[in-house]
């Protein structure tokens, strides 16, 4: 009997066992999945909790029911992986042997990485995140008490899971303030270490334009050193200060500590993997899936979903000693709630930045890429049902793993700037660089 062991029963781990169980003969392969929690959270739902759109019980289900029959489920924390002995040690002393291992413990907000954020009085001083269910509920209550002032959203550093959620929160809270009649007496400020609203140029431009329209102030190039709770302000490494009345920080994300203890991680404990096959560096029996892997693309459920399609094909070949020939292209597909009943959609991969256009069909959409409409908003809300009923069980969705260019507008080359042509020749041959 060969043993497949999966560490983590979140989006990626659950999909992996549900897809693989029917494909691996039960008398040849034992499949075991381990998680420290008996609950499964629909994490995209956290964003809506502060606004009262979702109640906590709508986004939590018992893990047990979400995993297919024929998979052994264990509850426990992982201490470390011994890749030489093919053994996983749990914190309670249990040893689990494996022939193939999938590491999928996700990535997690770690406020203790930032001075001030993890202090016991942080909430009292107006600091509330929404990246855990507990935090999202506390933020909901704090927002009920909020009566105007400076509301600051701070993306502290990348990578984070669901990298568009901070933007969504900014858009949603701006609309919510209108509804509450508090917009006039509130400044909304988005503080980011990036030089714009988003990393990719076209999206940064579109989203930056929406910030201006909505009167959201952007504070770019801000690398947070500490949160001063007494003074209620953010302080950057280059000593800029941003005061707040309500701060919504997105803490630094770290992978599971056991990844670091096992020598498999980068400096943030994300597993170093081949970005096309997810095989851990230097090993041929350890994979990392979902947010736990250090892929240079979004840490998002959609990436976990698309990568699983590639992974399953490859894994079946790999265990038969064949070469893995499917290659993941980094495909991500993210809705951005933009408030006022609308949303945007981004679709991109390792090589193609988010473009404008329609999705999935040219012209008719019905979803609009990198632009707002109501259909996108309903798409986002429908996704909770799709997640529980189609995605986690591993049922096929009508979306292809590889990104498609159909419906996307190809960016045209920028017109040559006539003034640039006439500019006096620079003394250095080096190009002028914007810093």
């Amino acid at each position, binding site marked *: 009997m060969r043993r497949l062991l999966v560490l983590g029963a979140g989006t990626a781990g659950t999909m992996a066992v549900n897809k693989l169980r029917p494909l691996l003969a039960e008398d040849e392969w034992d499949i075991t999945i381990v998680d420290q929690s008996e609950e499964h959270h629909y994490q995209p739902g956290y964003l809506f909790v502060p606004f009262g759109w979702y109640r906590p019980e709508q986004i939590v289900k018992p893990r047990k029911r979400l995993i297919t029959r024929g998979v052994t489920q264990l509850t426990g924390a992982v201490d470390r992986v011994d890749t030489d002995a093919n053994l996983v040690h749990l914190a309670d002393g249990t040893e689990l042997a494996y022939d193939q291992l999938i590491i999928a413990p996700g990535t997690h907000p770690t406020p203790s990485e930032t001075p001030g954020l993890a202090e016991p009085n942080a909430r009292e001083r107006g600091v509330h995140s929404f990246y855990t269910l507990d935090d999202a509920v506390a933020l909901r209550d704090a927002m009920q008490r909020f009566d105007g002032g400076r509301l600051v959203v701070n993306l502290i550093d990348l990578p984070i899971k669901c*990298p568009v959620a901070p933007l969504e929160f900014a858009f949603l809270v701006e609309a919510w303030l209108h509804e509450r009649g508090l917009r006039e007496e509130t400044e909304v400020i988005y503080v980011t270490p990036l030089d714009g609203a988003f990393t*990719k140029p076209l999206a940064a431009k579109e989203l930056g334009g929406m910030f201006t329209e909505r009167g959201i102030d952007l504070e770019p190039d801000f690398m947070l*050193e500490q949160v001063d709770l007494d003074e209620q302000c953010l302080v950057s*490494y280059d000593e800029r200060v941003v005061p707040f009345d309500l701060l919504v920080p997105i803490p630094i994300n770290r992978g599971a500590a056991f990844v670091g203890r096992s020598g498999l991680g*980068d400096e*943030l404990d994300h597993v170093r993997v081949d970005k096309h096959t997810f095989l851990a560096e230097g090993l041929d029996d350890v994979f990392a899936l979902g947010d736990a892997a250090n892929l240079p*693309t979004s840490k998002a459920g959609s990436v976990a979903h698309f990568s699983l399609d590639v992974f399953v094909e490859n894994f079946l070949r790999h265990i038969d000693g064949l070469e893995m020939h499917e290659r993941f292209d980094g495909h991500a597909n993210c809705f951005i709630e933009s408030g006022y009943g609308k949303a945007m959609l981004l679709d*991109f991969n390792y090589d193609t930045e988010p473009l404008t256009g329609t999705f999935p069909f040219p012209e008719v959409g019905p979803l609009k890429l990198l632009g707002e409409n109501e259909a996108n908003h309903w798409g986002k809300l429908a996704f909770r049902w799709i997640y529980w009923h189609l995605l986690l069980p591993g049922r096929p969705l009508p979306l292809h793993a590889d990104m498609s260019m159909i419906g996307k507008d190809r960016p045209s080359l920028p017109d040559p700037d006539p003034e640039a042509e006439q500019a006096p020749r620079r003394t250095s041959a*080096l190009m002028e*660089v914007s810093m």
Partner: protein
Amino acid sequence: MPVVTVLERQIHLDEEGFLTEPSEWDEALARELAANIGLELTPRHLEVIAFARSDQAEQGETPTLRRMTAVGGFPTKELFQLFPKKPAKKLSYVAGLQKPVGCV
């Protein structure tokens, strides 16, 4: 991709002016690059640059600011003093490396 002649040799740049071939870099070129963005290199700059380059050669990608601090041991505060305002971008520029990947 622009090709320009600096210090009597050809170097390859991307659209933003960053070197595309780390092997075309040397200390003399670093001083040219630094001057182009208004920096004067000190021995400490060169230590930081040396780590960034060796880490890039090993890992295949430009180290992030976090990695410079966590693995290289250079305090973030100091990196901001050496490369004001945009340390990650300025460091990679002067070190002849690509900008660190903006993870999304």
